[in-house]
């Protein structure tokens, strides 16, 4: 696998105007044909990471580096960013019901995105829209394009959303909890669709809180906790042998599929720290079962093994 790096976040730091840091240190990378799962609890900053890649966070101060196809995105002019959004990178949102404009047909909304980025006539744009919807497995795409979001089922809406995201052939697809609002069978179909997109050569960044979804779809995973990436690596390796105590605890909290059902699932005691009350040292230390005195100094993200990175004192040489 010598796929080139498509997106690279390097020590991304994001803070509110009042100085509260929302993201402290997010470093991750997505290569073409890879799917990176970004996993974390609510409030860990995974959605913020996605939004900052899209440049959709006005009013927040970002520092560090976001490199997309070799260009630095931070500090780019809004006009240039606009050209990238939708065309170079596209985003799929959690709830396709609210993410579509309720008062226009989905076809019109997909046409709009195509025509924003390419000089096409209405008819050409519509032809592409219909083709895309068909490719996403929407039955009778021509009629579906004329329908309004509320007239479609949740699964079809999300397919339409994905069709819209893919309409200009983006190199990077960011999916922010794309299946959370859907029921389980539809969820599986949508995830299969994401896998196909990945196999066709685009980079996918999948934001989720569900380790199962990551195992099903992604090639790599980054675990985010309280605005920091604590562990990163290939999915199979991380799932088989998680290094960071937080990842271990997360994986233990998944109910087993076979064998006797446990009386109670293991939980992680305590709650993630608020952005303005983050510990000085390791952010996970207050909840960690392996906590040691040297956790008072924040550990850096190291690479103890080939391809795997972890921020924990346990692996400091």
């Amino acid at each position: 696998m010598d796929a080139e790096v498509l997106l690279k976040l390097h020590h991304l730091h994001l803070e509110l105007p009042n100085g509260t840091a929302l993201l402290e240190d997010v470093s991750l990378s997505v290569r073409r044909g890879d799917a990176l799962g970004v996993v974390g609890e609510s409030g860990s900053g995974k959605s913020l990471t996605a939004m900052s890649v899209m440049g959709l966070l006005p009013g927040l101060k970002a520092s560090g580096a976001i490199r997309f196809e070799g260009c630095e995105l931070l500090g780019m002019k809004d006009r240039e960013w606009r050209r990238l959004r939708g065309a170079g990178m596209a985003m799929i949102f959690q709830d396709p019901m609210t993410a579509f404009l309720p008062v226009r047909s989905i076809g019109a909304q997909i046409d709009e995105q195509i025509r924003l980025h390419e000089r096409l006539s209405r008819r050409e744009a519509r032809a592409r829209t219909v083709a895309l919807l068909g490719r996403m497995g929407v039955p009778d795409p021509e009629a579906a394009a004329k329908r309004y979001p509320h007239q479609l089922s949740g699964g079809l809406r999300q397919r339409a959303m994905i069709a819209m995201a893919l309409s200009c052939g983006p190199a990077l697809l960011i999916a922010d909890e794309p299946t959370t609002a859907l029921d389980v069978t539809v969820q599986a179909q949508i995830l299969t669709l994401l896998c196909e997109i990945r196999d066709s050569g685009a980079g996918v960044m999948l934001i989720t809180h569900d380790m199962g979804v990551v195992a099903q779809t992604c090639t790599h995973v980054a675990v985010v906790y309280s605005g920091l990436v604590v562990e990163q690596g290939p999915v199979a390796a991380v799932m088989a042998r998680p290094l960071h105590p937080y990842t271990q605890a997360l994986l233990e909290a998944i109910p087993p599929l076979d064998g006797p059902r446990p009386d109670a699932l293991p939980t992680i005691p305590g709650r993630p720290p608020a952005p303005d009350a983050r510990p000085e040292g390791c952010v996970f230390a207050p909840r960690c079962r392996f906590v040691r005195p040297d956790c008072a100094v924040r550990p850096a993200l190291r690479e103890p093994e080939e391809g795997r990175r972890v921020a924990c004192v346990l692996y400091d040489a």
Partner: protein
Amino acid sequence: MIRSFASRTGQMLLVIFGISVLVFAIFFATPGADPTARIAGRGASPQVVARIRAEYGFDRPLPAQYATMMQKLFVSRDLTSFVNHGQRVVPEVLQAAPVTLSLVLWAAFFWVSGSLVFGIAAAVLRDSWVDRLLMVLGLIGLSMPVFWLGEVVNLVTQSRWHDTFLFRWVPPLGYVPFSQSPWGWAKALFLPSLTLAVCFIGLYARVLRSELLTAMGEDSIRTARAKGAGPVRVWLWHGLRLSWLSYVSLFGLDFAQLLGGGALLTEVVFAMPGVGRLTYQALATLDLPLIMATVMYAAVFVVIANALVDGLYALLDPRIREGRHGR
């Protein structure tokens, strides 16, 4: 489609019928007052009173009286004002209607365009000094009584500075029919309609601003930005699309009530012979048939305008077409 149209028309007729019964009951079936004497006006001779009693059937039961009244109002249209020496009431109202319609159309044009500009500007520049200034101006416009503002406008443009270059073009008070001179029509209506529009501009700009700001927080706006749409497109195309529903419904109500005589004060101050001024005169002379006619006319207009707005609503929001939002 045809079914919903038919049911809508049926509802309208039912509402108009209800209003007519109510109006009739208030004027003619109130216990302790003789409607004959009221129609005849003050100091009418016994012969006139007797004739009216026979003509309107006031010696017959109430349903018959109601039927006679409606027949005179809508079918034969020969309801006569006795206060005003046998003037036919219905043609009078129909003559006044175009005046009111012109005035209100102009005012609607001013208040819609004004409030769109101010509302969008204030929303885009929210919390800046422009926003605050516009909202304070809106509040001032909202709280200025239209009759006072009208008098001030008259004072300035008709007497104080009438002979300066600024207001030399202002025609004398009154109305010029469109068929007579379109330019004169526009000139005569400019200041009255602007005066009428001022308080609506203030109100509508405030409503639009807050609706627009709410809409901009919606997920679909975030999607629009993620698609690569520029700020102008996001605000005007997506944002307005989401926020003008309550604006339109408010507009329908205000427009209808103005057409139905709500522009009374403006019409009186600017001497516009419209429906509002007709109502005003009828009230001043206690001209019962005329009051009856103007009230019924107003009711019909309010009902029609409401139906039109409902139709517009369905055009704007496909969810309403399917009755998803309930009535």
